[in-house]
């Protein structure tokens, strides 16, 4: 049994740690590339959302390298993601691939079914043997997410342009080749130290932009034009509202134990969108309010074309913009890879934010400086 899984930003760090520690044989799909997308758009339904298409591309590219089992997470609505696995099965079977798909979810058959599936994933060993590796993998994912967060703060302030990119590129290249939790943790720590010792302009107060929207397009750089890097290199400090470690902690660990507390974003979102509607619509609206309250210069909402929850959030966003005077740029991503249109809009947005800040500073409206 050789296991594979779909890409979603740096999530492979978590999965790799887990499988390394469990001794499960696995293949990390090739980094999302043009061919991944081409395979996905060719075989997935035309109007399916972008993540499904890229998943299909990831799977085919992994199967070509010898994978025979696919692990994905599931759900029970209302977002389309909950029915992804069934679509994957149909499409891959239709193409004649003989692969098993193991969906990790609590469905109508309950927890015992989930345990059964987990057991299959780790080759019949007891599920309790997963506990420690899971814990380690979670800690590593948290560190990996914090590392990316740090790079978003360092990049706009670096003195020598390109130094953050070089450090991060080396990290991404290396992390796939080191084995086991200990080595990965060491690599992350090493990269963190490198970032911290990068020479930065301490007095520079960059424009600050919060990134909100649908989690997959937020986390997977291939689907968002590597926007954090792009903005960072324009001298903009970026804060991303969703991270996978945070999502797992909130929804799987605390949610599963019924210990999840109401989050600040939910309180802020409620006047605009009263209940959760699936996906990340409340996160999108609530976090935009929170960014505005923290004096961010603007926010960017990213989501895949036809994403149901984000369409609702996008429809309500003008009210947030009006109430909190925060400019929001919406980027809808699909399989069209022409970047120029997006780059022009992002450039113009950043220019506009700079100009706004200058005007505000001239009028002494801005009490707090950017940092």
């Amino acid at each position, binding site marked *: 049994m050789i296991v594979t899984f779909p890409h979603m930003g740096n999530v492979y760090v978590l999965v790799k740690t887990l499988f390394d520690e469990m001794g499960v044989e696995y293949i990390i799909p090739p980094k999302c590339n043009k061919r991944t997308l081409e395979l996905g758009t060719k075989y997935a*339904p*035309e*109007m*399916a*959302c972008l993540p499904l298409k890229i998943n299909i591309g990831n799977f085919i590219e992994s199967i070509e390298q010898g994978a025979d089992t696919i692990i994905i997470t*599931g759900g*029970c*609505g*209302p*977002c*389309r993601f*909950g*029915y992804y*696995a*069934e*679509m994957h*099965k*149909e499409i891959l079977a*239709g193409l004649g691939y003989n692969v098993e798909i193991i*969906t990790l979810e609590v*469905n*109508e058959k309950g927890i015992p079914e989930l345990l059964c599936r987990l057991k299959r994933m780790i080759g019949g060993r007891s599920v309790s043997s997963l506990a420690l590796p899971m814990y380690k993998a979670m800690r590593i994912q948290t560190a990996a997410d914090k590392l990316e967060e740090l790079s978003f703060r360092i990049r706009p302030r670096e003195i020598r342009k390109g130094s953050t990119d070089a450090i991060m590129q080396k990290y991404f290249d290396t992390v796939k080749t080191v084995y086991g939790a200990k080595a990965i943790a060491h690599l992350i720590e090493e990269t963190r130290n490198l970032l911290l010792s990068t020479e930065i302009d301490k007095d520079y107060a960059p424009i600050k932009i919060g990134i909100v929207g649908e989690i997959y397009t937020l986390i997977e750089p291939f689907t968002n034009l590597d926007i954090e890097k792009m903005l960072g290199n324009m001298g903009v400090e970026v804060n991303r509202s969703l991270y996978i470690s945070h999502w797992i902690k909130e929804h799987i660990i605390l949610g599963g134990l019924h210990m999840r507390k109401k989050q600040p974003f939910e309180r802020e979102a409620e006047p*605009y*969108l*009263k*209940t959760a*509607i*699936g*996906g990340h*619509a409340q996160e999108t609206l609530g976090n935009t309010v929170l960014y505005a309250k923290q004096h961010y210069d603007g926010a960017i909402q990213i989501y895949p*074309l*036809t*994403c*149901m*929850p984000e*369409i*609702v*959030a*996008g*429809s*309500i*966003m*003008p*009210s947030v913009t009006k109430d909190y005077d925060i400019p929001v740029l919406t980027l*809808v991503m699909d399989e069209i890879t022409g970047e120029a249109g997006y780059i022009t809009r992002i450039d113009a947005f950043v220019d506009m934010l700079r100009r706004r800040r200058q005007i505000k500073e001239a009028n002494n409206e801005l009490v707090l400086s950017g940092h």
Partner: protein
Amino acid sequence: MFKKIGIPRALLYYDYYPLWHTFFENVGAEIVLSDRTNNKILNDGVKYCINEACLPVKLFHGHIVNLIGKADCLFVPRMKSVARNEYICPKFTGLPDMIRSSVPNLPPIIDCEVNLRKSNAQLKEAFFEAGSFFTEDKARIWTAAQIAMEANDRYRKQVEGGRLPAQILENRQVPDNDGLRIAVIGHIYNLYDDYINRGLLGKLYENGARVFTPELIQGGIVDGNAAKLDKKVFWSFARRLMGAAMHFAEQKNVDGVIYLMSFGCGIDSFIAELCERRLRRQTDIPFYLIVLDEHSGEAGINTRLEAFIDMLKWRKRNDSDLSAHG
């Protein structure tokens, strides 16, 4: 207290209007229904609604605009779930918030939440919330709710007995054809709004076809079929469509299947594909997908529909047992 309530003739109107109408009438409200979908409603919908939304949601915005000035309040329930462990499209749940944010000069909106995912008990709250805008008499609200539920049951029985929702609600005439048997699968608000689908059902009738829609299939048959899937389709309305498609695939009692979806419909992007794959795998019944959007050019649909019907007739005349490619 309000007197006149405006109900948009869109989205779940075709599923729940008898219930809503009976309920509000019995709590003493005067009901104002928006006009049948027309060009102005479509244009207003496109104007006020977010660009990325699907056509039915845009039309809903148009129907809301149509009601402004005609009623004291508007009824836009927050529909989250209509059956245990099931959901409906997230856009329905966010609809009241979308409307409030997008349409200016709105009267108050009654947006009681309907969420039956965990139990039916929540329905009672929804009735009391909606009724409290028209009367303080709780007993009256509860009686009205009972009568409304009965009206709803009667309506469902009528539909399952073979009468189309459009026949019951809009007095549409359905000829007693015995030509081609054509199944038309799609969300209820696409099937019965003649404007949205460019009069699809009428065109089929003109060609002598007998039309079968998912609503006409007994609930039990739909449930039984849908239960055969590896994983439950957790959207209530999509589950009905899937169950219906499986029924036609199994019975092989139709000459052709038309699937009607709106551009950008998240749910149908999956369900239409699954229905098509299943029909193609199990049968040789021709399948035709119509995607609706706000472009109002009708010629494209007409040409393709005529070609589809011609092909079905030709297959039937020659030998219906043989597949088209011999």
